[in-house]
């Protein structure tokens, strides 16, 4: 608190609620209950419920996907060619009809819709969207479309949370935050990875860290994962191979993987960026057939020898991690999965991008690992490690969530020794992807949909203006609070600015105008000290590293705000006025 500006201190010290009295029994009980269930605490409790309901919904979603798979594609590991062709095609027809006529908001992955709820619709996502997403995504993934269940789970969680928030009549601020809380719960349950889910939602949806948001997001994610594990067990999505970084020189090999992954991410996102608007621009009647045609083409890929591209593909990620494919086959599968996912996604079939991204990353990682094992046998480790690192690489390069990508691999593998390869490879992939395609895929999708949602990556990269960029040196004399008015007036001349800063004892600052000083002397107060006439009239101060936005809060009320040293509040570094701030903003805009 000590280093907060005074005005902030004032804002924090809002009047507390009235203490209940015995004279008004009902009101007092109401006040008591209200104090117990104050909105912020209620929000935390509600987060747990959101987690529970999201967890239950995700469990049911998993059941639905599996049942669709069994009844549409068959229960065997080896699928019949007829089913491989018919199931995704016919399911595509049904999905298109449902999306066009019944659940128009169920289209897409779900991440952007949740962001839109946060920034455009005041946290409101209709429950119908969740139902639509549940049905259509289960049908799509279960029938073999190359999509995953994570992003739909995220949207289902967000939608349930939004419905609960509306029922609880939360304030607008809370309503805006409730969708991301549900999103974290849904994603955590789908991924069985609460840390990654929390990080993803903070990093990509909300974009800022505060204790209130973090607490709610964590509570909902943890409770949803507990519910999911209750019903589906705690086993991870794939068996984790033994991971070991034996020599630091192996990092060179992982860097190569990062570079390859970066280019693959660019190819994948370029495909979506190009094909999606093209598909959307086709005549409206074609939308009835686009998912079916995508399904048919995926079926053909499967029949021709790559059934692995169908569905989320976690079984095959597991196999790739345990060296069950040659590196050539792994490379082919990575390429075909990109094609299959492009087909499914750009056709408007509801489903997620996370699982395909992980699939492509795992295949690509294991392929690069296998190739390196032949070319650089002394540098490369096991294919399983490469597959794990590859998943993180695509996550960083394609979804552009660098922190989540590192923690996701760490959390999924449960092995700390993988962190160095992941960090190195992810950095390469992220930098290449960002260099070649400056706009992240989720932002591309929102702009294609005609929305302008804030880009978290752009926000992270945005340079902010600080007080030190606009402040100037104090031109007039700095008065001391113990000086008499007469002495102070003697130090003033025609060149002195109108507003004079007064250094208070022991700390603090005030200001006085030349005119006030003159008036008070005329009133016969010349013998009084400045502290006596300025009692209780402290002004806020700023520090050079404060953002210029913060300065803007003060400069309209105080004509001159002192900028002081953080270690010594009485030491003046400069001053700032409204004119200084506006001039700096104008220059910045022109620049």
């Amino acid at each position, binding site marked *: 608190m000590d280093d907060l500006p005074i005005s902030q201190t004032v804002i924090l010290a809002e009047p507390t609620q009235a203490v209940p009295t015995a004279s008004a029994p009902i009101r007092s009980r109401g006040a008591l209950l209200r104090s117990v269930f104050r909105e912020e605490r209620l929000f935390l409790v509600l987060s747990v419920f959101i987690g*529970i309901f999201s967890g239950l919904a995700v469990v049911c979603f998993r059941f639905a996907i599996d049942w669709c798979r069994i009844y549409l594609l068959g229960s065997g590991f080896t699928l019949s060619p007829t089913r491989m062709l018919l199931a995704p095609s016919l399911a595509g027809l049904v999905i298109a009809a449902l999306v066009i006529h019944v659940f128009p908001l169920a289209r897409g992955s779900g991440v952007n819709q949740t962001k839109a709820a946060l920034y455009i619709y005041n946290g409101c996502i209709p429950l119908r969207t969740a139902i639509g997403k549940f049905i259509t995504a289960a049908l799509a993934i279960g029938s073999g479309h190359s999509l995953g269940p994570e992003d739909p789970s995220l949207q289902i969680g967000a939608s349930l949370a939004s419905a609960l928030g509306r029922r609880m009549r939360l304030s607008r601020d809370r309503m805006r935050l409730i969708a991301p809380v549900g999103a974290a719960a849904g994603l955590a349950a789908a991924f069985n990875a609460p840390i990654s889910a929390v990080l993803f939602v903070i990093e990509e949806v909300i974009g800022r860290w505060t204790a209130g948001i973090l607490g709610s997001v964590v509570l909902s994610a943890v409770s949803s994962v507990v519910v999911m594990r209750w019903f589906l067990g705690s086993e991870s999505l794939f068996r984790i191979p033994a991971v070991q970084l034996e020599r630091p020189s192996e990092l060179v090999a992982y860097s190569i993987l990062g570079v390859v992954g970066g280019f693959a991410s660019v190819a994948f996102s370029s495909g979506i960026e190009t094909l999606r608007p093209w598909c959307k621009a086709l005549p409206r009647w074609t939308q009835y057939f686009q998912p079916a045609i995508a399904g048919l083409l995926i079926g053909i890929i499967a029949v021709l020898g790559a059934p692995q591209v169908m569905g989320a593909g976690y*079984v095959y990620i597991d196999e790739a991690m345990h060296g069950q494919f040659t590196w050539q086959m792994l490379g082919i599968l990575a390429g075909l999965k990109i094609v299959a996912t492009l087909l499914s996604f750009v056709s408007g079939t509801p489903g997620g991008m996370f699982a395909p991204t992980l699939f492509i990353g795992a295949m690509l990682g294991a392929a690069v690992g296998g190739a390196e094992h032949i070319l650089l046998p002394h540098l490369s480790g096991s294919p399983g490690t490469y597959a794990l690192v590859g998943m993180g690489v695509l996550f960083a390069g394609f979804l552009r969530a660098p922190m989540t990508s590192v923690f996701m691999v760490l959390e999924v593998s449960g092995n700390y020794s993988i962190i160095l390869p992941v960090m190195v490879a992810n950095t390469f992939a992220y930098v290449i992807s960002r260099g070649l395609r400056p706009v992240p895929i989720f932002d591309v999708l929102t702009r294609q949909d005609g929305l302008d949602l804030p880009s978290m990556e752009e926000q992270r990269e945005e340079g902010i203006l600080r007080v030190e960029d606009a402040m100037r040196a104090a031109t007039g004399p700095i008065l001391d609070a113990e000086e008499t008015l007469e002495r102070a007036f003697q130090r003033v001349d025609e060149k002195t600015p109108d507003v004079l800063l007064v250094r208070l004892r022991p700390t603090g600052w005030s200001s006085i105008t030349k005119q006030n000083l003159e008036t008070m002397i005329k009133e016969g107060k010349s013998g009084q000290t400045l502290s006596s006439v300025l009692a209780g009239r402290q002004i806020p101060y700023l520090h050079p590293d404060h953002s210029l936005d913060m300065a803007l809060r003060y400069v309209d009320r105080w004509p001159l705000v002192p900028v002081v040293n953080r270690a010594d509040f009485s030491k003046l570094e400069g001053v700032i006025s409204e004119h200084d701030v506006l001039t700096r903003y104008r220059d910045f805009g022109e620049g």
Partner: protein
Amino acid sequence: MQTLQENAIAASEKESGLRFYLSREPLILALLSALAVVSFLAVGGLSRIYHAQRESLGNRWFMRGSGDLQQRHFELAVNEFRTALLYSRNNYAYQLDLAEALIGLKRTNEAYAYLINLWGREPENGLVNLDLARIAVQKGETDQALRYYHNAIYAIWPGDQEAEGRNARLELIQYLLAIKAMTPAQGELIALAANLDDDPAMHARVGDLFFQAHDYEHALAEYRLSLKVDQHNSAASARAGTAAFQLGRYDLAQRYLEEAVTANPDDLQSADRLKTTELVLKMDPFRRQISVDQRHRIVIEAFTAAGERLNSCAAVGNSAGTASSAKPRLADEWAQMKPQITEQGLRRNPDLVETAISLVFDIERQANAACGSSTGIDMALLLISKLHEGN
């Protein structure tokens, strides 16, 4: 009037309180809790149906896979076990059988991935350790192979624990013999032999392994134990005779080889070895319980045979162009001694027996080294020389 007003106020307050409770958080939270419980129960019911279906599907595919594995249709079995694992990914039995099927298809890397996972879960499982040992053998990782074989020997096995452990040790021994690690193989064989029951076939098999490990003493002991229970096992007799032959115990060898040849006249190898054995026994001049004249006759016969060997070896040596440099000296010695090697000469100078036999042994050894292995009487003389080496 005042009472009415008070009642109205009270009613109004009561009504507003009820509205408050209905619209405010505590009640809604209570309702949410109830809804959560009901939802939990509903999803629980759904979950039971889901898991029961998966278990049933898993079992069905596993049974099919097991059938195909038994019939050695490995490709089909792999697909069926993989399908079973779709429904129960961590099922131990499914993974183990899948690994077995993969081994059957020689897809050892894939099998290894499953097995190492299973080993992590149950390091004491005998079958997993044995499969891992076999994979290590295929990969040429001797240390790993020995480690897993030893784990398998002392591991927990379903069914007959002792027999499975013994089979694992037998496999280990065969592996050690294959990589020519004779000393550790002998150690394992001794441990194995110590715990054998009265199964003659097993004793004979262990005898064979001892024989391969060049441990003829233990091999003979095992064959004898086998023959003790099953006297009519001609193969065991033949191998016992061979072991005794290798040990230089020609009396015993003669006995077993005679039994073998009598029981199986088609066993030409034993018959051949029996002839050599009989020659050794006949031509040994240092045998006890033979008369001086008989010894002299043996010396003369051996001396003559050595001379013939010298001549034939010279011919062979010349034709091969690899004549030994020592031979002319032996030939001279032999020629010099020849007039004295008569019954009279030997009787006159009994020390000549030693000298003559020593020369015979030298000739046989040198000829064997220079001209290749000998046969018949030369072979017998060579064996006799080995028998008395150092005396």
